[in-house]
Structure formats: structure tokens, C-alpha cells
């Protein structure tokens, strides 16, 4: 078995271990009356053991891929997102040992699983580095920034637990609606995975010629039925569907098609779940969160921002500026990715000030943490794939 295959197998092992870990942490929470119970500890220990095994396998993936390619595997969308998933699990393990609660693992692992699934939808081949990425700052900047984001994400995880426990789902409210919207978003990501895997298994392909925004002839291959056509498209594959609408050159119709299919699949999936269980998804998940100690969740959320914020600052702003100064001749250039890193930073700065000086703790704090994670995800997904400046991958 060569390094690349070994690396792939290790990643798969990690994925399975995280699934098992989720179930074990679930057992820990289910069997206990509250945070400090004995059952919590026993199942929790099992859960954390399996999670650590998964994390080590994941780390093995990272190292073997690094050895195979000769550069840190953080250079494209698949690699970065997979590394982010790994660091998220790493952060969850750290917080398990700081606070000994299986709840963080129970909620962090499924999110990490979704992130890994999302990552696997991008091309997984090992790519050589373009000149701009040929620097040791790639390793330093990207890993530190991702670590900071992973630690900050823990605050969203416990924030979600806090909200699930404390929002009254029996009464109609804005909070209930938004909480359900978060659940829906997660299902849409699942929808994206399902639909991508589905069309891939069916071997769907539709090639088009089109005219890009620089008025150049270009080619594009869809792997899903083309709902939207690129600018002045011209079908090259026979027997595929005709796009429903043509998009102007500045809109990437392929991305829009993928997005629309994901929303369709996610929505169907969501209503199926609602139909079968006759409950909101938040209600389905709530029993797992009711045993949480709110004060502890709030504390963990605040602590993870305190630990993650300096790491994020160092990685996503300071190291970024040093590298930008070396590679692009200026330490700051208002590139969209840079701007969104700054926005993330400002947002968490606001979180800290609101908490310290205006007493935004508990519920408000939990909402802010969830929004913070949404900003991080926006920077990862939308800024890379839609806005696309100097940082666009793949």
C-alpha cells in the first residue's frame, strides 16, 4: 500500500471512529440524569477513547498525505476542510479534558462528520503547489488560522446545546424559528452530500462551451443536471437536459446549479424527516441537550472564545499579514478573504465586549457564538466559491 492509499484509509478510519464516538457519547448523555452523573463518566470515557483513536487516525491521514505530497495538506478545498474537521475534533477533545462533559463531543462530532462529508465532495487528488503557495507560511498561516476557527467553533457547539436546552419549543417564537433554521441548514449540507454522491454514482456529465466574463471561450462540465446555463452556453453532450435559464457572465451557473440542487435535496430530506417523526428537528435533538448544565455550557462557550480568539488573531491576521507582505508585496490588500477574516475578528471582538461590559451572557452569548460560526463557514464556503479573490481554491 502506498502512502496515498494509506492516507485515504486512515481518513476513512477516522470517519468511522467519529460515528462510533457520537453513538457512545450519546449513550453517556442518555443514561445520565445530569452533567455530574456516573453513567456520564463511564460512557464518556469510552466515547473519548474512540474519539481520540479517530483523531489519531485523522492525524495519520494528515501526516502521510503531507509526506506523499511534500507540502502541508491545506492547499485546496478538500484538504483545508478536512484539516478543519480534524482540528474541530481536536478542540472538542481539549474541551472534554478541560470540563469532562460528553456533551461537547456528542454535538461536535456530528458537525465534524458533516464537515468531512462536505470536504469529500471536492476533488481529492494531490495537487502541486502554484508559485503563490510555495512558502512555509502556507503551513504556518493556514494551520494556525484553522486551529483558531476550530476552537472558536466549540463556542457555537455549546451555544447550540444551550439554546436547545433553554428555548421553549412548545411555544411559537422567533428563537424557535431560527433554531429550526440552523437545523435546516445542516440538513441542506447533508442534501448537498446526498445529491452529489447520487449523481456521481449515476455518472452524470454534461459539457458546455460558454463565453466567460473576459469574453473568452471556455468549457465547463456539470456533474448535475444543469438547471442554470453559463453565459452564451452551447451544449456539447447529447441527451442532457436544457438549462432552464441562462446566467450573465459574472454568475457561475454551475455553482448556482449545485447550490439549487442541494437546497432542493435538503428541503425534501427535511420535510421527509418532519413527516416521518411529526416533530421539528430541534425537538428531536432537544432530549440530548436537556441534561446540560446551562451555566457550564455558557462557561465553556466563553472559554473557547477566549482560547480561540488569540489563536485566530495570530493565524488569520498576523501570520496572514506577514505572508501577504512576502508574497503580494503588501501586508493588507482588502482581498475578500482577508476582509472576511477581519469581519470574523471584529465579530468576536464585539462578542467579548458585549459579554464583559454589557452582560450579554447565556442566551444572547449563545446566539452570538452560533452567528460567529456562520461567519466562519461563510468565509470558507461562499468567499472561496462565490466571491473568489486571490484566495479561491480549486
Amino acid at each position, binding site marked *: 500500500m502506498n502512502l496515498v492509499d494509506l492516507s485515504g484509509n486512515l481518513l476513512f478510519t477516522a470517519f468511522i471512529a467519529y460515528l462510533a464516538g457520537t453513538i457512545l457519547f450519546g449513550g453517556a448523555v442518555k443514561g445520565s440524569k445530569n452533567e455530574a452523573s456516573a453513567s456520564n463518566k463511564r460512557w464518556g470515557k469510552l466515547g473519548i477513547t474512540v474519539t481520540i483513536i479517530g483523531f489519531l487516525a485523522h492525524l495519520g491521514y494528515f501526516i502521510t498525505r503531507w509526506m506523499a505530497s511534500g507540502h502541508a495538506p491545506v492547499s485546496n478545498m478538500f484538504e483545508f476542510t478536512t484539516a478543519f474537521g480534524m482540528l474541530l475534533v481536536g478542540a472538542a477533545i481539549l474541551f472534554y479534558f478541560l470540563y469532562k462533559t460528553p456533551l461537547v463531543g456528542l454535538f461536535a462530532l456530528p458537525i465534524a462528520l458533516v464537515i468531512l462529508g462536505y470536504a469529500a465532495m471536492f476533488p481529492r487528488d494531490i495537487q*502541486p503547489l502554484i508559485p503563490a503557495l510555495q512558502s512555509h507560511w502556507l503551513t504556518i498561516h493556514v494551520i494556525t488560522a484553522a486551529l483558531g476557527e476550530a476552537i472558536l467553533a466549540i463556542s457555537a457547539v455549546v451555544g447550540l446545546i444551550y439554546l436547545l436546552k433553554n428555548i421553549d419549543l412548545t411555544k411559537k417564537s422567533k428563537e424557535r424559528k431560527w433554531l429550526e433554521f440552523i437545523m435546516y441548514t445542516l440538513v441542506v449540507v447533508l442534501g448537498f452530500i446526498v445529491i452529489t454522491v447520487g449523481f456521481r454514482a449515476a455518472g452524470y456529465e454534461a459539457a458546455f462551451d460558454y463565453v466567460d466574463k473576459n469574453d473568452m471561450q471556455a468549457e465547463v462540465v456539470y456533474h448535475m443536471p444543469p438547471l442554470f446555463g453559463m453565459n452564451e452556453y452551447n451544449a456539447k453532450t447529447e441527451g442532457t437536459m436544457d438549462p432552464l435559464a441562462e446566467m450573465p457572465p459574472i454568475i457561475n451557473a454551475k455553482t448556482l446549479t449545485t447550490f439549487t440542487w442541494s437546497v432542493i435535496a435538503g428541503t425534501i430530506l427535511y420535510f421527509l424527516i418532519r413527516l416521518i417523526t411529526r416533530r421539528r428537528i430541534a425537538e428531536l435533538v432537544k432530549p440530548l441537550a436537556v441534561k446540560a448544565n446551562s451555566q*457550564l455550557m455558557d462557561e465553556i462557550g466563553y472559554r473557547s472564545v477566549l482560547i480561540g480568539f488569540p489563536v485566530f488573531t495570530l493565524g488569520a491576521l498576523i501570520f496572514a499579514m506577514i505572508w501577504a507582505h512576502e508574497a503580494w*508585496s503588501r501586508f493588507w490588500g482588502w482581498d475578500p478573504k482577508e476582509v472576511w477574516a477581519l*469581519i470574523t475578528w471584529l465579530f468576536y471582538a464585539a462578542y467579548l465586549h458585549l459579554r464583559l461590559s454589557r452582560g450579554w451572557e447565556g442566551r444572547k452569548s449563545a446566539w452570538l457564538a452560533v452567528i460567529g460560526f456562520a461567519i466562519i463557514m461563510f468565509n470558507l464556503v461562499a468567499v472561496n466559491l462565490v466571491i473568489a479573490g486571490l484566495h479561491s481554491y480549486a
Partner: protein
Amino acid sequence: MSSIKCECGHLNPEGTDICQNCGRPLSTEEKSKKLADMRYDGAAIRSKTHQRTVVDKIWNFFSSVKIGVSIIIAILVAAAVGTILPQVFYIPGGGANEAQTAQYYEDNYGIFGQIYNALGLSDLYGSWWFMTLVGMLGISLVVVSLDRGIPLYKSLKNQRVDRHPSFLKRQRLYGEGQVDDPDAVMKKAAEKLKEQRYNIREKNGALLAEKGRWARWGPYVNHLGLIIFLFGVMLRALPGFYVDESMWIREGEILAVKGAPGLYLENKGFTFDVYTQENTDEVFSEAIDRVGTVASNYQTDVALYETPEGALPGSTNAELVKEYSIVVNKPLKHEGFHIFQMDFKLDELSAMTFALENKETGESLGELTVNLDDPQKDYDLGNGAKVELLDYYPDFDGFENGEPQTKTPVPNNPAFLFKMTTPETPEGETSFVAIRQTLEPLGENTHKLAFQKAETRDVSGLTIRKDKTIPVIVLGGTIFMIGLVQGSYFNHRRFWIRKSENGQVMVAGHTSKNWVALQRELDAVTEYAGLPAYTDQRDKEAQTDKPEGDSKS
């Protein structure tokens, strides 16, 4: 200024919430709270006490955290809006020409683009209002640091050991109870706390244990760092602090470095490489197949020259400083100047060779090579044949009023007006020669200039920067990071333990953050010294959360 006299007799400045001496609540607001507001240890902050003059009002405006957070959010939203469409400096032309810019936004983004550009959102980060917001944030950072930092410093410096029981009772961690031997318990507690590296002070049967006070200065240190950073950014606007130039340099050329008097650069060759199946490791083969061309290197080999100090202007005796290969991520560095590989043009024409031929017989009367950088006026081919270059159009762009036009001085599409003289045609024939095009403006010729070959070279696009503000920026960033770590990874923890009159012992604890760790330490002390049990007065769920044996197995 008026002052408030506490029951203990201490005179506190107006606006104090908690008596700085004994710790009793003073203000009605503070008295109504179940737990003490320990943010600034109850000290009076300037903005709460001075509210009369205009200066006070401005001060209070900027010292308000509400305003501070509002400014942060405003900058955040503005920054986000600026990423909806590319900013002017990322569009072709860089926004130098206003009409062209407007056209670009209209052509590419329609009516939305037009509005976006018209509102100035296309150059948002350079707009006066965005800079004003950042400036306001800077002022807010200064004011808030002075407003809160100084009273907090004073308050923590003059802490009294024996705080009033009401102060202890109003702490989040609090416990009281009967113990057999209060003095022994206090002694053992002090021992344990010392072991936990607390500084212990004792007075009148009361004990104050404290550690990590310096963590409280973290926010003020990081604010200072940010102020220095913003100051550094502002310095850039001053002339001489910031050089930002770019230049094109052809292979073989020696040019003065723009923005750097006395420095000359020679382009010894440009290299552009791509990854291929042959030259790369096999692990990449799949990706190269899928993606196609992937660049692997952009490189300009240069020699840097400098005229010696004191040399006459325009003197040519420059000395070689060094030879260097500029690649992406590895700029050439010299005396604060950084020269970056930013762009390139492959295969620009440098010379063209033509043969003078008889159109009918095809007989060649000789060849001439026109150096496009330095075209000669006359080319003598010998045997009485010569060619005169009447005019040269480096970037031929069609005719206007019968006159050939050139768009730029760059030889992208060279065209020539030649006069050919041969023994057969001593009066000369005029021919206009462009790429794939020959015109004979003054009637049919017997001779023509047939294109033979062209020589090309590459052109490197380099950027020259010098940024004298970097040391200030680095200093600001470093101080900010130190302050951030100081305030985030270290905690200020305090315990107060005292005997009360009826033989009971009271214990209270406070920390700036990380209450779980504080509780762990207090648990250890409680167990070792036999202190009365304490509760977290904030945690409503804690009572139901004590360890229990819910499952027997």
C-alpha cells in the same frame, strides 16, 4: 467634586459603586443587586462622574462600550458590503480613469454595479467615512483605556484585606458556616492557598489571597497595541514613508528602479515553468491530468546596481550590489526596498528580420534586422541596395486620416514605413509593412520586404515597495498579541476568608474568568482546611447537579 462617605468612614469619590475600603455597596443600584458588580471592582470611572462640559460629553461618548461595539459593528458591516463586488483596485485599469471604471461596473454588473459604483462602494475602504469610522475606533480605544484602566489600577492597588461581610456575601462563590477552630482552619487554608501560588495577606482575622492580577491589564495592553498599529497605518499617508511602484523590465534591459534613486536593475532572464507529468512526482499525475496547465515557477534573474554615494547625478559608474533570482514569495531585499515578482509577458518582439526581394524574380538583395528597441534610420545592404526606415509604429492600431497610428510605445504589433532603394530603382519605393500586411501607398513596387524571422524576449512585471511604517506596525501587532494572551490565558483570582463575630467562617471567591478552575482550587482548599461548603450563587441548576448515583451498575 462631592464624595460619598461609607458606613466604615471611608470617603469614596462620587460614582463609586462599592466602597473602596470595606467593600460595602454604596449606590442604590449596587445595593439592589444580589451579587456585587466586580467589573472595575466597583471603582468610579470618569465617564460616570463627569457629565457636564462638552469635553465630558465627548469623553463619555467615546468611553461608552455601547458606542465602541456600535463602531465595531459598523466597520464590520461596511467591510462586508465592500466584498460584494470587486473594489476598484482589482478591476482592469485599477480605477485610475473614472469614466472607464463606471463603464466597467455597468458592463459587468448592470444596474446594481452602476449604483454600487455611484455610491462610492467600489472604493469603500478608501472612502472618507470608512476612514472616519476607523479613526473613531482609534479614539474610542484611547478613551476607554484611560477611563476604565486608571480607576481599576488604583482600586486593585489599594485593596483592603478585611472587607465587610456584606462584600463577601455578594460574591458569586460564597460559603459560611460554623467550624471548630476558626484560627486553625484559616491557617490551613492559607497554607494550601500558598501552595496554589496565591499571594496571601492577613489582617484582623481576615485573609485575602490573590494571584494573576496582571491578567487584568491585558485588555489595556492590547488596546495600546492596536492604537500603535493604527498609528503606523496612518503614518503611511506621510510622504517618504511608503513607496509603491511597479515597472516592466525586458530581458537584457537595465533600468533605474522606480521610486529608488540610485538603484538600477538588470533583467538577466525570465523563467516561466509549468508542472508536467515528466518533471513532477507521480502523486501529482492525476491532478495535472484533470486541471491541465499548472504553473510551477515565475522567476526573474536580476542584477542590482547602485551608484556610489556622492556620485554625480546621471553618472553611469554604478556598482554591482548583488545578483538574485526573484521568485514569488522571495522578493529581492535591499536597503528597505523589496522588489517582487508580480507579473510577466512572454515573447514580446525584440527584433524583426526582413529580406529585400525582387517581387518578380524572387531574387534577394540582402537582409536587414530591425532592433525594435533601437531602430536605425538606414540599413545598407551593399551592392547599392539600401533600406531607409521612414517611420516606426510599435503598436500599430489602424489608420486615422490616412496616417498610421500607434496605441502604445510597446512593440505589440510593430509596423514600419520603409523606403527601398536598389540599383534598379534609384528613386526609391515606399512600402508600409505590418504583421501579415503590406501596403504600397505610392503605387506598385517592384521590390518587397519579406518577413524572415523575429526574435522575442520576455518581460517581467516587478513591484517595488518600501514601507518605513513596518517597524511601527510590527511593534503594535506584537504588543496587541501580548496583551491578548495576557488577558485571555491568565486569570485574576481572589479569595476572601474571614471570621465573623459569632465564630463562623466566611469564604468568598472571585475570578475575572474561568470559574470552573476557581472552583476546583477552592474545592481543594475546602477539603484540606475544612472550610465551610460554598455555593455558586449564579448557577441555578447547580443544586440539582451534584454528583449522585443515578445508575447503580
